[in-house]
């Protein structure tokens, strides 16, 4: 009964546009005062402190920062030039370039919204000037950017790993193959658009051009891979790797390319701090409310209810997929992970789903969720840049969404797609 009231309170307050983190905190505060008595209220402050104190989550601000620093230098421009030389000869060349650049950029950045802002401001106007409709330009960039959270590093993956108490590093590795498959599937969708709307190829393929642009983008290319490599190899933790990524970004932008814009950098630092704080406040207040839900055995009750219906893990995965796809339409990805993962984890492990496999399934779901309105942060950013309507763009975006759903289904039901590399690297 109490739990039902608390859930109603949280949802009610959120729907009245109280920020979700504060809706959770407020309900927990009321519950402490009413159930445990007002003398326990100092626990509110203690728990809000402990909930935000997490060494693994420190990787989030650092990865946000390293992406932002790369952005404040000429790295996006160099990566776009390299991708153009590689795939610009295909029909619908600029769409292919958007996807290709997103693959490279995903190894630097862990946030799709950041990618679409960085690359979209260059590529969307370019596509429009080559005769792509603003809807196609926005949809292509938006979907391509979703690779940022599938290919490591990935902020949703870090959050998931902490919430599900599993390994960030293994989850990163699990994202590599599905991310590349996603890029291929989206290239297929882009080709379909290119034939349908008769988009031109951009440039002839010349090996000399690949060599020249590749040399100019070399550092932007090698350092992220070296850092990811040392994370995968266990030489550094994910958080330390994130710190190295910041250092590398400063060295590449400031010392090698020498075009780091310090005003932009300062702004990026502050904005990264804000984004981190917003996520961390939610982490802290959900930890506070989580103690109540755990005491009431809500996650276990949910697990029992579901396992009484079926213990087939593929059926459970299907139900969770549907739930997360719907959730992704209405919630920001960070909020969805923080709120839902602690509740569904007992169910996931009790039917024998590998937590790493599930983490990848969740990440793919949320990547799709960022494309599906009404709440679709990545799509809305792309639409704002292209000045296109969200719903018209969504109609054009459907082939890309289908491509992503195909990768989701493949990764869900053929676990080796995500877990193959993990087992190869770490055994098991």
């Amino acid at each position, binding site marked *: 009964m109490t739990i039902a009231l608390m859930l109603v309170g949280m949802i009610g307050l959120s729907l009245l546009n109280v920020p979700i983190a504060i809706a959770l905190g407020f309900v927990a505060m009321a519950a402490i005062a009413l159930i445990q008595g007002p003398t326990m209220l100092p626990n509110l402050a203690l728990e809000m402190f402990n909930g935000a104190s997490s060494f693994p989550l420190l990787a989030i601000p650092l990865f946000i920062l390293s992406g932002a620093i790369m952005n404040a230098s000429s790295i996006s421009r160099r990566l776009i030039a390299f991708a153009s030389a590689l795939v610009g000869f295909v029909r619908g060349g600029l769409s292919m370039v958007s996807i290709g650049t997103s693959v490279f950029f995903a190894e630097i950045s862990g946030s799709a919204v950041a990618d679409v802002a960085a690359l979209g401001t260059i590529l969307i106007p370019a596509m429009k000037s080559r005769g792509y409709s603003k809807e196609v330009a926005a949809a292509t960039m938006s979907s391509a950017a979703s690779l940022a959270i599938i290919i490591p590093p990935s902020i949703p993956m870090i959050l998931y790993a902490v919430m599900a108490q599993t390994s960030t590093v293994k989850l990163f590795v699990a994202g590599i193959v599905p991310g590349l498959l996603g890029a291929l599937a989206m290239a297929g969708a882009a080709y379909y658009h290119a034939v349908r709307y008769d988009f031109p190829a951009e440039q002839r393929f010349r090996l000399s051009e690949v060599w020249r642009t590749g040399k100019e983008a070399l550092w932007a290319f090698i350092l992220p891979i070296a850092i990811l490599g040392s994370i995968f190899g266990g030489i550094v933790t994910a958080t330390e790797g994130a710190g190295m990524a910041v250092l590398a970004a400063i060295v590449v932008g400031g010392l090698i390319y020498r075009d780091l814009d310090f005003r932009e950098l300062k702004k990026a630092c502050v904005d990264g701090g804000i984004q981190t704080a917003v996520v961390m406040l939610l982490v802290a207040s959900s930890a506070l409310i989580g103690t109540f839900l755990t005491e009431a055995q809500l996650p276990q009750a949910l697990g029992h209810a579901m396992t009484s219906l079926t213990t087939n893990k593929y059926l459970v995965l299907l139900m969770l997929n549907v739930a997360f796809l719907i959730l992704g339409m209405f919630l920001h990805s960070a909020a969805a992970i923080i709120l839902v993962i602690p509740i569904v984890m007992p169910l996931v492990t009790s039917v024998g789903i590998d937590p790493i496999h599930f983490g990848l399934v969740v990440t793919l779901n949320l990547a799709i969720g960022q494309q599906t309105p009404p*709440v679709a*942060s990545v799509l809305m950013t792309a639409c704002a840049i292209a000045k296109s309507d969200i719903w018209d763009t969504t109609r054009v975006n459907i082939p890309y969404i289908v491509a992503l759903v195909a990768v989701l289904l493949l990764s869900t039901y053929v676990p080796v797609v995500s877990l193959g590399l993990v087992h190869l690297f770490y055994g098991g």
Partner: protein
Amino acid sequence: MTLRTVRRRYEQLLEAIVLILMIALTVLVIAGAAFRYLGSALTWYDETASIGLVWLTYFGSALAALRGAHIGVPGLVNAMPPRLRLLATLFAEAVVLTFFVMLAYYGLQVVIVLQGEHMITLPQVSSQLTQSAIPVGATMFVIAELLRLPDVLRAARSGGFVDTETIEALSHGAPDPAANAGARR
């Protein structure tokens, strides 16, 4: 000084705090990794970095409040007629302010109780200092929320609220004036 100037100065103060915390955390993590690699690990590095993240959480949250960047669900409120929307917004603001006033008050109680306690790996640093992030941060949050209140009420009376993450991202690239018309929430 007009309210606008006060707000601008306050934002600059919070930005400076967040900037310093971000730089300090980055340097700390890199140094921690370097020392461990060189074989003389810093024992205090994990605990200090975790506490630093808490500080970033609360001071950053105050700045996020000033910019209206906390994750919310504005859909239903936006669909309301303006008068009802104003009412709902006043209620939501009351909830937010109540929570942080309480957090500041009980945070202060905790700080008082912690007299004599200290960090585990750095005994010379008092827990009163580390825990102060809660009462101080919560108080700064309340001030930020109050400074933004006129904007929020104006948005509630006119067009409604815009999704936050989108606006934040766009402030880096090409800003779209149309998207900035409503207040952020």
